[in-house]
């Protein structure tokens, strides 16, 4: 008697839960988003009509959308630059052996473990117009005349959001870079030192290029997490003041769910897709290349 579980069937059976999971949680919403984006569906409406690309044309025409599109890129790029500089510095420092290294590594990893909503609420208080600790210090040290409105002035609000994003991705990037640095044999920077290279040359021409694949992974992760995140903006500013800190995910949520215009919300969120596609492709490339070498 032949077993009903031949290799092919068994493989398919074991893959099935994962496929179902991805189809239900990623595939269906994605297809729904495409469907909604070309329809006039509203929250609580029970019929919908095909409207072609009208939703896309409408959202493109609103200033809020253009700001959100710009912000999504701006916040991602700025915060990732900050993360790169900060994580490199921290990783270099934490590579050295010193007494409290273990404790420091743990403390630096903490923001990564904490839920992003909780962290954002913490920051909301730190940056609050009345209760801000930063303002308290700035006033006491007589560095400012009047307390800055961190979340109330467009430029400061943008800076605050970027900073919180950077704070959130910093631990992960630091740990990844630290792992990369540790994998470099001690001989290599020593050879560079004997060859006459100073700190900067060793860092930029030897160390960083050697850990580039792993830095790329850290940056790609950071891009995805930051680009698709709406929690930070939603909690800190709700996109304000006057939509100046709106990003695509938060605008999609506000328009589609809170505003009830599902079609327009879906159209906005689909603008995330090309960027995520590029990042996913880059990640696969990096993964494949690191297998080859």
């Amino acid at each position, binding site marked *: 008697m032949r077993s009903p579980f031949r290799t092919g069937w068994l493989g398919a059976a074991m893959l099935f839960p994962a496929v179902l999971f991805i189809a239900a949680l990623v595939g269906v919403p994605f297809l729904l988003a495409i469907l909604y984006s070309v329809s006039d569906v509203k929250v609580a409406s029970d019929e919908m009509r095909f409207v072609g690309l009208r939703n896309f044309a409408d959202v493109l025409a609103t200033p809020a959308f253009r700001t959100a599109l710009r912000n999504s890129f701006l916040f991602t790029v700025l915060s990732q630059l900050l993360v790169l500089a900060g994580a490199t510095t921290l990783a270099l420092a934490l590579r050295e052996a010193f007494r409290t290294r273990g404790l420091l590594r743990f403390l630096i990893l903490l923001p990564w473990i904490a839920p992003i909503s909780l962290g954002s609420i913490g920051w909301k208080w730190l940056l609050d117009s009345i209760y801000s600790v930063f303002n308290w210090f700035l006033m006491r040290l007589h560095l400012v005349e009047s307390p800055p409105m961190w979340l109330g002035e467009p430029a400061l609000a943008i800076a605050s959001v970027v900073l919180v994003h950077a704070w959130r991705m910093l631990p992960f990037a630091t740990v990844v870079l630290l792992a990369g640095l540790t994998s470099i*044999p001690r001989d290599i920077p*020593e*050879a*560079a*030192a*004997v060859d006459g290279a100073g700190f900067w*040359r060793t860092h930029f021409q030897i160390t960083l*290029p*050697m850990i580039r694949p792993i830095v790329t992974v850290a940056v790609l992760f950071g891009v995805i997490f930051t680009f698709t995140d709406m929690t930070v903006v939603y909690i800190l500013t709700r996109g304000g003041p006057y939509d100046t800190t709106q990003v695509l995910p938060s605008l999609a949520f506000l328009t589609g769910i809170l505003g009830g215009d599902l079609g327009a919300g879906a159209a906005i969120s689909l603008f995330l897709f090309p960027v995520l596609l590029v990042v996913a492709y880059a990640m696969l490339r990096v993964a494949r290349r690191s297998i080859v070498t």
Partner: protein
Amino acid sequence: MPVIETRGLTKRFPGSARPAVDGVDIQSRDGEFLVLLGPSGSGKTTVLRMIAGLEEPTSGEIRIGGVLVNGLTPRERRIAMVFQSYALYPHLTVYKNIAFPLKAQGVPRSEHAAKVAWAASIFGIEGLLDRRPRELSGGERQRVALARALVREPKLFLLDEPLSNLDAKLRATAREELKKFQRRIGTTTVYVTHDQVEAMALGNRVVVMDQGRVRQTGTPTEVYDDPADTFVATFLGSPPMNLIDDGRVTIGFRPEHFRPADAAAPGALRTPFRVDNVEYLGADRLLHGELGGRFAGRTAFSRLASHVAAPRVGDTLDFVVEEGRVRFFDAASGERRESGAGATG
């Protein structure tokens, strides 16, 4: 003026009981090939790393070309070093690897190509300049590492076991090439190895180290023929020098000087020798056996050329040590002494 000189060089790593390097004095002569030889843990690599500036001495002085370099960075010492692992930069081509020291030391870019070509030609790696280190064989990597060290024409070469990652066959040719190259370039070289064959073949002089101290410094002939103590006597030579306990004195002689008695050559020391084992090694035969007479119970090796008729296992016959080949050591300290006077029996 010595190119490199250390005085009382000492390195104590935190948490270790004895210093890794303990009062080492080394002087190299201009153009000399100086070999630091010792077992692992003897401190030879630490000495090299302190000369390079990669390790800070606990005490003592290092002078390069008469200038005190303690506290100077590796960059400021202007030396070249080849690491055991070669430490090639994996993301750079061979050309860029070799050009890196030129860039780092601010040599004008227009001179790079000619200098790299020159260094590459010396090691016959002109055809590899576009490759990356991972595409090279072990022997090729070693040449690239040497070319990278040579390209800036340093006044001092430091080599840390550069042949130990090569297979045995390649090692012999690489050794010969290294010697030829050093003779041609004439740059003072300090070479660290645990391999006595490399040390003897390459060194103008050999510094034998053990447990952080210099046991003896001398030409290969001096350290082999006139070892300063029983450590040097047994570290060099394979099999090592026979050491025969004789009261307050230890008698030493090399296996190749211990041969069957011959009426024509009376020999300096005569003893019965019972052959327990014979190994045929091609060119030689290695005999192991027990001494008789006043040395009864002590064992020794004898190395005889294969074309000489050899005693068979179980034979007992009179062996002699050739005239002028017996060495004496103090039994307590192990240090060399001039005569066997004071020995018992």
